[in-house]
């Protein structure tokens, strides 16, 4: 199966209506993601980045503008887009193997079995097929969730702060793993994060969003060779550039969540 995964977002706006109020969450978002690109979206909490992601997944309905995946307008969730949530959301009553196979039409066929096995290997969970989620550590659970999202070979993988709940060391280890998976699968990834370092380590481009209403402030390319060195001069420079965006455009400087 050929993987496409070009995402085009044109003039996207999203409003939430409560009884009396109307709240604009996203305003005039324009973004193009090429196949195989790794994009991070970074912004302070409440800037609408999660809403944006949910719109792309199709879990949120009703928007103005256009979201096109390989030229087709999005309409509800689909297997063409995988998603990994911050909480791993593995079903506690299913074994890891079955959790990973959740997205497959017929999880019992030889083909599916193979796909599950491959993806478990991909995320480094071989040998844990029969385990249950509660028997896994946080990092392992998140890896299982990634395998689950990838198993039907979606064109694009959306990650909603996938490493947010992990401790610093595990997180750094997971950065390597994620990069490896991304390279191996050659898949488009869009990740939401709070963590500037994480974004620079992994992304081709960093989308910086500002809040109320959420708009794209700046798109910062990261033209560094991989694997990236967190201590290098270029790395630090990009980091400063990203941080500067916040300094300048945040009304409440104390609400950083960096």
């Amino acid at each position, binding site marked *: 199966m050929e993987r496409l995964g070009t995402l085009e977002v044109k003039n996207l706006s999203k409003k939430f209506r409560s009884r009396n109020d109307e709240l604009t969450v996203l305003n005039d978002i324009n973004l193009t993601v090429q196949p195989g690109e790794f994009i991070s979206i970074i912004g302070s909490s409440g800037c609408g980045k999660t809403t944006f992601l949910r719109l792309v997944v*199709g879990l949120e309905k009703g928007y103005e503008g256009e979201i096109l995946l390989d030229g087709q307008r999005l309409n509800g969730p689909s297997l063409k887009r995988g998603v990994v*949530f911050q909480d791993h*959301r593995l*079903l506690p*009553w299913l074994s890891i193997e079955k959790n990973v196979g959740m997205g497959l039409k017929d999880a019992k066929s030889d083909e599916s079995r193979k796909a599950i096995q491959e993806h478990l290997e991909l995320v480094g969970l071989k040998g844990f097929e029969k385990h*249950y989620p509660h028997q896994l550590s946080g990092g392992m659970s998140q890896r299982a969730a990634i395998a689950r999202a990838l198993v*039907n070979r979606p064109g694009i993988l959306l990650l909603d702060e996938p490493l947010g709940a992990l401790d610093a060391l595990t997180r750094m280890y997971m950065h390597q793993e994620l990069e490896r998976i991304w390279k191996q699968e050659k898949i488009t990834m869009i990740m939401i994060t709070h963590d500037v370092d994480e974004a620079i380590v992994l992304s081709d481009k960093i989308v910086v969003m500002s809040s109320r209403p959420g708009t794209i402030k700046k798109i910062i390319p990261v033209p560094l060779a991989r694997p990236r060195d967190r201590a290098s001069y270029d790395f630090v420079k990009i980091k400063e550039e990203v941080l500067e965006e916040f300094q300048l455009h945040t009304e409440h400087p104390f609400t950083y969540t960096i």
Partner: protein
Amino acid sequence: MKIQLLKNKLTGLIIPLVLYVAWDLLSRYELVPSTLMPPPKVLFETWWVMQSSGELLLNMKMSLLRVGAGFLVGASSGFLLGTAMGLWKPVEQYLNPVFNFFRQVPVVAWIPFLLLWLGIDEWFKIVFISCGAFIPMTLKTYDGIKNVPASYLEVVRVFEYGWFRLLRTVIVPSALPSIFTGLRLSLSEAWMLVIGAELVAAGEGIGNVMVIARRLFQTDVVLVGVIVIAITGFAMDRLLGLLETRFLGWHRTQNAQ
């Protein structure tokens, strides 16, 4: 460590033992009339007579059959209504208020009408037990389905599941702990109500044995009846508990963490 544990267990036996000895002495020396509190020895003898004559088994069988029928009807219809209300908004909107209204009325209050409508035979007893078993089952099934975490549902929406697969992989397993609670509540309610039904309108059954014994002034038989229904109720609950651990191992361990 082990000795301490044993000691702890033994402490628990002190009060029952003291009570037992007090009971034995009081009734043996007639400080408490043995007509009200027959001595333990008499109870064992009575139990043995009832057991060996087959009287106890026969009546237990009748009661258990009734509980079985009433529980089956009540719990399964409760499961259906709970599921329907949990899954379909219109059903919930129209039926939940009515259900909530009727569940406030204790089943016992319906006895005169149930007797009027159904007579004093099996129909009355089974309907009565079913009504009692129906309510906790409906509540717990409905609760369980309503409380399926939205986060799990979102995961599945991405996978484009049909409703049947959705039900099978997510909704039912997620609601299962609550449904099991419903089953246990429903069964203990059924067991209580079968005794109640047999006290009100007889036929055979362990409740009826107690009524007749009461009327023939055989307090020992009444007491044996109380003990037997306690043990049976306990055993039934444990049985469901075992089933629960078997099917819901993931839930137990998850909660224990």
